[in-house]
């Protein structure tokens, strides 16, 4: 940029010098012709002035076309390039932002689906756990009832056996007392005779 400014200043200096030279040569002629004409000639170009001015203009135009225009053209081109690049970058950024937005939307949708799936799975797991716990509790209760029934049955049998045993012991004790103390010698001898007659043989078994 600084170089461009330097070139423009250099060009301006050169053009001013050329124009000053032309003007320095032409005033004498202009004042001379102005003094000689009047009326309509006042609005008409004075050829003596016009031609040097035209020459100076042409020279200035040539100089500007030769040295100034490429610089301005380069600046404009560069500016155009900068603007175009900026537009391209902004377009790329817009596309990128749209892509990212699409990705975000997709990820958000995926996250929503995952969340829905997780909730559904959690519900399913919860239902299964609930069913399992219920089944286990029912089984445990059934087992406890069955064990209680078995224990009651065992207790009943044991009590019946105890009662039966007690009855048997009591009966035998009573019979023993009756036989031991209630029989006379003759009755004992009668029993012995009966047992000897009814007992098995020595040779049996």
């Amino acid at each position: 940029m600084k170089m461009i400014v330097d070139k423009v200043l250099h060009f301006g200096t050169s053009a001013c010098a050329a124009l000053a030279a032309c003007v320095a040569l032409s005033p004498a002629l202009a004042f001379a012709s102005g003094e000689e004409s009047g009326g309509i000639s006042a609005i008409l170009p004075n050829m003596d002035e016009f031609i040097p001015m035209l020459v100076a203009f042409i020279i200035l135009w040539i100089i500007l076309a030769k040295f100034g225009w490429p610089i301005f053209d380069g600046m404009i081109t560069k500016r155009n390039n900068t603007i175009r690049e900026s537009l391209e970058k902004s377009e790329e950024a817009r596309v990128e932002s749209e892509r990212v937005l699409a990705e975000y939307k997709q990820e958000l949708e995926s996250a929503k689906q995952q969340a829905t799936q997780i909730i559904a799975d959690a519900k399913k797991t919860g239902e299964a756990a609930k069913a399992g716990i219920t089944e286990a509790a029912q089984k445990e209760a059934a087992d406890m009832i069955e064990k209680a029934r078995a224990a009651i049955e065992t207790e009943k049998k044991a009590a019946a056996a105890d009662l039966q045993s007690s009855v048997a012991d009591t009966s035998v004790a009573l019979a023993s007392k009756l036989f031991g103390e209630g029989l006379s010698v003759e009755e004992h001898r009668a029993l012995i005779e009966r047992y000897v007659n009814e007992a098995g043989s020595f040779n049996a078994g």
Partner: protein
Amino acid sequence: MPANRFLEKAEVEVYANTLLDSLNSEGGIDAVMEARTQMEQVVAYNRSHTELINASSSPEYSPEQRNNLVKEVFKGMSPALASTLGVMAERGGLQMLPRVLSAFNELIRSKLGVTVVDVVTRVPLDDHLRELITNKAHNELGGTVVLREQIDENMLGGIIMNAGSKRIDASMNTMLEAARLALKRA
């Protein structure tokens, strides 16, 4: 002491034979039955008291000392039995006495033709019951039947008859026990 069981059996039979012959020649069947009773008492005593058996087989005593010891202990018994026990102790074989008793019982039956029936009752037998039991034993076992009566007041009633290894248990104790078990099983 013989290690071979056949030699031991032969030795047992020698003791039993010698004792039986000696007793029978001295006092007949009564002496035999008396010695038999005494031998049973010795066997029963030795089952619960091992001191005499241990002393009679101890190497700390000489054979003569063992013989004299046993003779001294049993001097109130039948002389033939005491002498036999002394010889057994001298030879270190007093622990064979239960087998000698079994062989002795067998010899009483086979050699003398006598069947000894041990009868246990709560009350004493009368002549009618003796005849009944004697006839039953004679008919079933043969030989001359000798009854050995024993009163056991712990018996509730009935009778137990033993003839060697054969036994009839018609006691009330056994019957009531069987009834008690049957009632418990029912």
